[in-house]
């Protein structure tokens, strides 16, 4: 069970461009991702959309599997720029890691 953090999108602006809400959950990014990891990076982007801040911190090791090949950003039909979002999440996690 996760409690939604309504201010998360605002908090994230410091680390990443505000493009996650462009995503309409098509799953193209997860299909093209060569890491063959379950629903990556789609799930992370969804967590941002709904404000599941704690879920991102809990599953943050997933983020470091990303090689930044750019395929997801290249194929995203909504130009939500998933690659840049993942990079932003890394910055967010690092910043919060030290704090906790």
């Amino acid at each position, binding site marked *: *069970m996760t*409690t*939604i953090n309504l201010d998360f999108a605002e908090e994230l602006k410091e680390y990443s461009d505000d493009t996650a*809400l462009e995503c309409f959950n098509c799953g193209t990014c997860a299909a093209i991702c060569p890491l063959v990891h379950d629903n990556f990076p789609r799930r992370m982007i969804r*967590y941002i959309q*709904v404000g*599941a801040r704690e879920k991102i911190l809990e599953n943050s090791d997933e983020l470091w599997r990303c090689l930044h090949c750019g395929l997801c950003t290249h194929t995203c039909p909504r130009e939500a720029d998933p690659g840049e979002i993942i990079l932003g999440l890394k910055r967010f996690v690092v910043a919060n890691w030290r704090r906790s």
Partner: protein
Amino acid sequence: MTEKNTDNKKVGVYICYCGGNISDHVDVEEVKKRAEKMPNVVVARTNMFMCSDPGQELIINDLKSGKIDRVVVASCAPSLHEATFRDAIKRAGSNPFIYEHANIREQVSWVHHGEPATDKATILIASAAAKANLLTPLDPIRVEAKKHTTVIGGGIAGIKTAIDIAQTGINVALIEKSSLLGGQLNNLDKLAPSGEKASEVLQELLDQILTHKSITIHTDCEIEAVQGYVGNFSLSISKKSDNKIEKLNIETGAIVMATGAIPYIPFDGEFGFGQHEQVITLQNLIQILKNNKSTGSILEVNGKRIRNIVMIHCVGSRQIPGIHQPKEDGKLNEYCSRTCCAAMLNASNQIKENFPATRIYEMYRDIRTYGRGQEELYTQASANKVVFMRYEANAQPEVSLTRDSDYPFQVKVKDSLTFNEEMDVPADLVVLATGIEPDDVSGLASMMKLPIGTDKFLLEVHPKLRPVEFPITGIFLAGTCQAPMDVGEACNAAGAAAVKASALLRKGFIELDPFVAEVNPNKCQGHGACIEACLKEGALTLVEVDIDGKTVKRAQVTAAMCLGCGACAAVCPEKAIDINGWALKQYEDMVDAIVSDGFAV
């Protein structure tokens, strides 16, 4: 009076290829040869399309030259072209009821193949020819019709129907049970999807209806009784005014039901409704937005700042047996209310565009933005950063009060867009997308014998082909008494019902099919069995007549009310009553033709 049929008639048989639809499976030329040998058949012809002009000409020429005096067409289902061929016969100067139809497409070529198909086509034609031999010319029943229509219900559908009928020169009485015209429109604000103000739409129509000389408006009225038949209905009405009840009577030619629908009211405790004042319905939210004067960047309701709204879709709609809680009468609303998705998105967009700091989470089962301009509302809501979460019917969101949060509610949802993970969404306000429910008009419906569907909405004759008519001739329906509709759809239906009613009454008389019961006065002994068997109250009565100085009872048919069902003919011990165009002897000869082996060889 039916003409006695003693001599054998000259029957012409016209067999259609239907461009291969029939002839691919039925040997049409072989059927023609067999038909030529049938009793009383004087000519049999074939054509690629009998319904085409050259096909119809074959029939018209044979009738005009006196070669034939009875017609059988073997083609598609009579629902398609019976009227076409009756019309051709009329143009040849003959009576259109000397016609019989054999359906050799739907009942033969589309379901049988090869020799059995050819044999069955032959048998159906033999049976039709046997009946044609006994057909007599009939005249349509002519009923005088009052050029007056009564519209029941003063909502948008009723008002629009009344105006459209009045514009064709027919007088209208509009009956409304409350003291106010406009119905549910009085409770709406900016209409989805195009954003017109409901009050302006209503005012435009009120300006027209209140000044129209041919429309009489009766508010605070209840209908107590409806009698009569098409062209001649009679309504007894009681009108409340100044604590006294006034009776009035309206004589009218046609009736339009526009009795509307009501919003679904959640039961006590449904998503916290009735227990917390910050759990409200869609209709409540529309009222709040209508009257809201706050100017800041955040919506305020009852003086409270609304930081986050959770909206729950499909409340009281699309209910599933075994999952949703039925009402006391066991009723579930299994239908989709259709209007709530667009109305919710419309409200969300208004909130986000005026109060951008208020956040919105919409929890839906499916978003059904089905109409023109509605999908754009969804796209707009996405652009306005409304967050959508999707729940399954068997895992409804749960609304509960919080203890240690500064938000009063948390809504637990299993979000299938986040891979079925469970989440708690904090909220200041919960809005339930309550749908549309049928109003209880069972009293009126039983007075007029109108059918009600399993969903408790009034039921039309045919959902596609006759959507604004009841099976009772002269009674129509429009608007949300039939199904959930938005304002535009209700006005569409109103326009259609108005045209139907006007076309019916325009001539001042109505011609009905002559297939009704007729009593043979020489045989009737006044037993009254037919009256007991009759399904339609008032269609058959016993009247006193003088015969040889004695007063005796005899059955009498009111042709305009007779349904032509034949229940009377089945029970008469004297065989003194029969149905014109579908007489017992005609049936007997049809059956004889079917069971005789002679034709299909």
